[in-house]
């Protein structure tokens, strides 16, 4: 029995009934998996995204989305970004559907979001949490990405790294179709 545990959500394990498990074990590893209609044994990459900042599956997706020999796919690029962000220490994307929809509308923001989240993960204190969300302005029809920086106890020291992060991405935002704000809402990490 092969278990796939909840991927990036920490949900309960997911199982794959391998043709080689239990009774099938006796048929040994050299036999092609005909039980699943496959002529050749597929490549399998197993990695724990909590152990590494970038899981092998994410690496593969990131490369596959950009191989010159393939038909380009925007959705695969966004999926790779979300997998990659999920593996970054201290970065959360709680409402993924909203972020995914935003990046579909503003694909030129993918690079900025990746770059800023990586910088936040590197530069902020270990007890800081950053949350990538889409802010919807309630008064006018406007929305933009927001990176909320949260920590258990707030002090003035947080403003400096927030300012530095914002300055780092300000140049990248020039000419983009969307926007990204770095701020805090003074909430505790979730």
């Amino acid at each position, binding site marked *: *029995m*092969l*278990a*796939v*545990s*909840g*991927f*990036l*959500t920490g*949900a*309960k*394990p*997911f*199982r*794959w*009934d*391998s*043709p*080689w*498990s239990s009774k099938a*074990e006796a048929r040994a590893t050299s036999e092609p998996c005909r039980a*699943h*209609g*496959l*002529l050749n044994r*597929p*490549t*399998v*990459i*197993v990695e*724990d*995204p909590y152990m590494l900042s970038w*899981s*092998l*599956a*994410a690496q*593969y*997706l990131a*490369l*596959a989305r*950009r*191989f*010159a*020999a*393939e*038909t*380009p*796919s*925007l*959705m*695969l690029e966004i*999926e790779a970004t979300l*997998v990659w962000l*999920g593996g970054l220490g201290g970065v959360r*994307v709680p409402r*993924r559907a909203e972020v*995914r929809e935003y990046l*579909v509308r503003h694909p*030129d923001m993918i690079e900025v979001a990746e770059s800023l989240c990586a910088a936040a993960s590197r530069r902020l204190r270990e007890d800081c949490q950053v949350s990538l969300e889409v802010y919807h302005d309630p008064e006018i029809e406007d929305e933009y990405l927001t990176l909320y920086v949260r920590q258990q106890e707030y002090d003035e020291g947080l403003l400096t790294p927030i300012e530095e992060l914002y300055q780092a991405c300000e140049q990248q935002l020039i000419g983009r*179709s969307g926007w990204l704000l770095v701020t805090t809402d003074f909430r505790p990490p979730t």
Partner: protein
Amino acid sequence: MKRKYAKPPIVEAACEFRLPPDSQWDPTIPGLVYQKVCKEFPRKEQRFVTEVDVSETKEGPRQEVRVTERAGFLTEDGRFIIQIGPRAFGASCLKPYPEWAAFKQRIQVAFAAVAEAVEIRVLQRIGLRYINRIEVPAPAGSLGDYFMFGPALGPGLPQNLTSFLVGCTSSLADGRDSCRLQLASGVPEKEGTAAFILDIDYFLAQAQAVGKDGAMDWVEGAHGSVSELFEACIKEPLREIFQEVR
């Protein structure tokens, strides 16, 4: 008979044509194409695509990373886009996926507009790719209940997967075409679910085996093969999730 679903898992469909490296091309072609498609695709945008090219040389494998600029022409609602870069163009569509006929019509518009702007004799490559995003309840059942295609690990290997990727490339149409099937773990949108990306990438493997007049027939045939492969990848519980229309 082809199956239909009320909630198909397709999040993106893309069709791309590439011209031979020695074919005629100049930077004014995207502008000429826009003039022909601007009523249906009025919105313009510029996209930069970073590509990794791995080729075999006498000195060994060589990797080249290049950034190419592509012009994008979108419908008003942003669901359909025509993209044109140097010697490459195509049409893609985001969810909700329409009927095949509607997507094919956009592919035809793109192909006809480029064919009027530049001479097309043969195609270096044609690709038809469908990205399916599938979410299923995480605690119930096993992957094998949903897919005919998945990881098969020997008894001595770790069985507790947190992420995975399986893929294979098959030769079809007497070696003229190939199809790359990939199933990978994705990022779920809802708590308590597991997400998978089923990527079906069907392409012309024999460069220049299809000419201008046969291009749309190739696309139609490719779509038929992709539909059959998709059905061959999934099992009944997924058809229930996609709400098959009978």
